[in-house]
């Protein structure tokens, strides 16, 4: 469905992505890596914000360049996200509905559904300036899922959120994941270990490992607590072992 082959991206002399190849099907993917690993750059290449130097990104077998089908099937919540404070939640989402060319007759239902999905239906007529940071981020998720896109990409969606909001985010994921590809970029293992079907670990512009949570954990077996230890390694242990190439 969504495929990245031999992707290279550099900024002047700084090579940020080096030969990245990945393949995605429906499900939730966690893109895990420390700060500066190249996650945001990879995501911006995936959503066609950056021109790539080498390689190809395909959606349903076609390059995403000038691919209207791809562009109308993508929902994106960037790392830094804001909304018009002067408008209400409803008006902000309506703004995005128009940009996404959602049929006028369907707009109201679409907005209500999305707000329900992110548990903000009671704030529909509240101005954004009155909402908390967590609520604004949830509203960001609502704008990303407007129009029922088949691919949704979240870049550091839980950054700055309190634990309660993080749990809420995980619940939202379970609600919206059906028949979709969801990619979550984060440097916090906890955000993705329970909800992701597959985890991709990146560092220094390369994909180091891609697999299920179990496969990631297995990378730490015998390396963290010793082979005879009764303590089982966590995803975080696996992640650390992969990153540090232990």
């Amino acid at each position, binding site marked *: 469905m969504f495929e990245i082959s031999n992707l290279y991206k550099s900024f002047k002399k700084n090579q940020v992505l080096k030969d990245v190849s990945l393949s995605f099907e429906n499900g939730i993917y966690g893109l895990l890596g420390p700060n500066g690993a190249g996650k945001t750059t990879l995501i911006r290449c995936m959503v066609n914000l950056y021109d790539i130097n080498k390689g190809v990104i395909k959606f349903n077998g076609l390059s995403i360049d000038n691919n209207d089908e791809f*562009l109308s099937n*993508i929902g994106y919540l*960037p790392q*830094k*996200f*804001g909304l018009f*404070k002067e408008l209400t939640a409803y008006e902000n989402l309506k*703004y995005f509905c*128009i940009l996404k060319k959602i049929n006028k007759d369907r707009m109201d239902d679409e907005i209500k559904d999305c707000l329900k999905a992110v548990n903000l239906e009671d704030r529909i007529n509240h101005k954004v300036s009155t909402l908390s940071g967590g609520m604004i981020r949830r509203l960001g998720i609502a704008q990303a899922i407007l129009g029922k896109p088949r691919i949704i990409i979240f870049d550091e969606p839980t950054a700055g959120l309190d634990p309660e909001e993080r749990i809420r985010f995980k619940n939202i994921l379970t609600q919206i994941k059906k028949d979709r590809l969801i990619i979550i970029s984060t440097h916090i293992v906890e955000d993705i270990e329970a909800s992701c079907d597959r985890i991709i670990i990146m560092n220094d512009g390369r994909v180091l490992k891609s697999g299920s949570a179990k496969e990631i954990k297995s990378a730490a077996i015998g390396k963290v607590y010793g082979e005879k230890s009764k303590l089982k390694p966590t995803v975080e242990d696996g992640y650390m072992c992969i990153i540090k190439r232990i």
Partner: protein
Amino acid sequence: MSALIKNNLKLFFRTKYLLFSFLLFTAAVNAFLAKEFYNLLIHNDVLYYLGESQMLSIVYFVFFVFISYEYIAKSKNVNLSESISVINNGKFIFYISKLAALAIIMLIMTLNILIYNYAAYFFEGIKLLPFALHIFLNNILNIFLVSLAGACIGTVAALYLSKFQAYLLIIILTVLISPISEFMPYVLFMGYGINIYPLMDVLNILPPNLNWVSEALYGLSIEPYRWNLVIFWISLLSSSILFKISNKKRKIINYISVTLIIISVYNFYFYMHPGSIVKKDYNPMNYIAFDELYYSKNVQKEEESGFAISSYDMKIEIDRKLENSVSLLLDESEVLRIYKFTLYRNFDIKEVRDKNNNPLEFMRHGDYLDIYNSTNEKLERIQIVYSGYSPVFYSNSQGVLLPGCFPYYPVEGYKKIYIKEQSSYIPIIRDCTSEFNLYVESSIDIYSNLERDGDKYYGEAQAVTLVGGFVNEKKYNNCTFYGLPLERLETENNLFRIDDILEPYKSSLIKDEDISLKKIKIFQSTVIFSGKMADNGIVSFDDHIFTYDLSEDCIVQGFAQIYIPYDANKSKIKKEFFNYILHKEKVRKIPKAELENSVIYEFRKLFLEKIDELGENYVMEKTYVFLNDKNDTRDSEAFIRSLN
């Protein structure tokens, strides 16, 4: 898109600092317009009111630069652009809808000024459709397009620059565009001879001449070059906006951007070739300085031609400038080697041909044209093709002021054009007549002293005058008056009683009693004509008169002057002569002390002393003979001192 624009407008008016700025701006604009409307009730000058309203152009410019910067930068500040850029064409639609919202606000604010202007138009009872259009075009050019250019600058600054850089650019541009910076090129040119006017003028999108008395025939400056300049900036800035907001892979948007660049280049080319314009700044190429600087040197000559032009066939085209193809039928007493003409120096000769259509050699030196005859026969007919303009006596698609006393077509011999001591033009009035046949092509209606049949003008006359713009033809009994409806004369009714007014002077001043005075056409002098032509704009030909007023004095002087050849050396005595005839009591009432001590009365004192000494009738008779005698070349002082 309309729903998005609606949301953007909602956003604009809900953003506190934008709303506050807008309300403050609207209140200030309306307070100014209302104050000026109150003044209109006193001065009743609708053109002046239009000029005052267009002064708001700079305010609109600054407001829309600032407001568009803040409005566009706002979406950058709230981190929206990334999520919008991912949507198919999202960034493009987003910014275009925002600019459209700003354009709607600009339109509303332009409409605001238009309402006041049209209220003034109807209030003053001006029934002149071209002026109604003039009001509209002024507001579109000076208010809407200037605001749009401002919005484009603000948008480019918001998209490309940081806040500090953007504000720095906005402040610098505002200073350079506003009249504050006018002194800079003036100081550099006058002080050091460095001409930076061409550089400064590229930024000069604001309406010019607003601090000057408006030219009622012409209206305010909306010449094509001004449209070219503002469109050049708008299209150039728009293309850079498009490059920034579009997905570079979208071919259609790239094509639009390239088209905008082509439009801007096209407009820049025509901006660089403005043709005839009326721009009253100190640029050495414009109204004030172009002739003043040139004639300050000794470049003028006077010489008889040795031939007369018996007929003129002209094909005149007036668009950005005047183009003329003239065929002259010559009356030569002998074969001449050089045919000498006067033709204003800013008309470029393209070709000169003889009666057989063979090219003739010629030389241009200033206002003079020498055409060489290499044969041993009389030339009989000469065809000259030329084009150009005068920065003072305009000829373009907005207005035409081509008085017959200004050499915009070739006249025989070398003539002096300009009196540098008075900074004014000498009315060139030929003492013979010619047969004129003109075909004039122009987008505006042209009036002339000649008979008219559609675009053709014909008749025998000393000269041909062409006038077009805000001018009305009115008949008063049999007298035809070409008046300026935007500068109505309260004395216009005097035209009903011309005969009565002239009657007391017929025996002394008006020689030819057979002349049919009613056949004479009267043209109202414009501000430029009165200000720049000697004798304050009262110029008389056999068949038409220019006068700035229709008071009894002006009518008498206008008619009496028909018989007095113009001589710059005699202007002082002519002025005193007419003053004494028309305002004898006033002249006599000047207190003796004032007459003795004031420099301005020096000549008058001399004149009155001679009257007291030699008698009024004697002095006036001698003066009249002196004024009429073309061969007497003494100046005014030499004449009056010689009286005994």
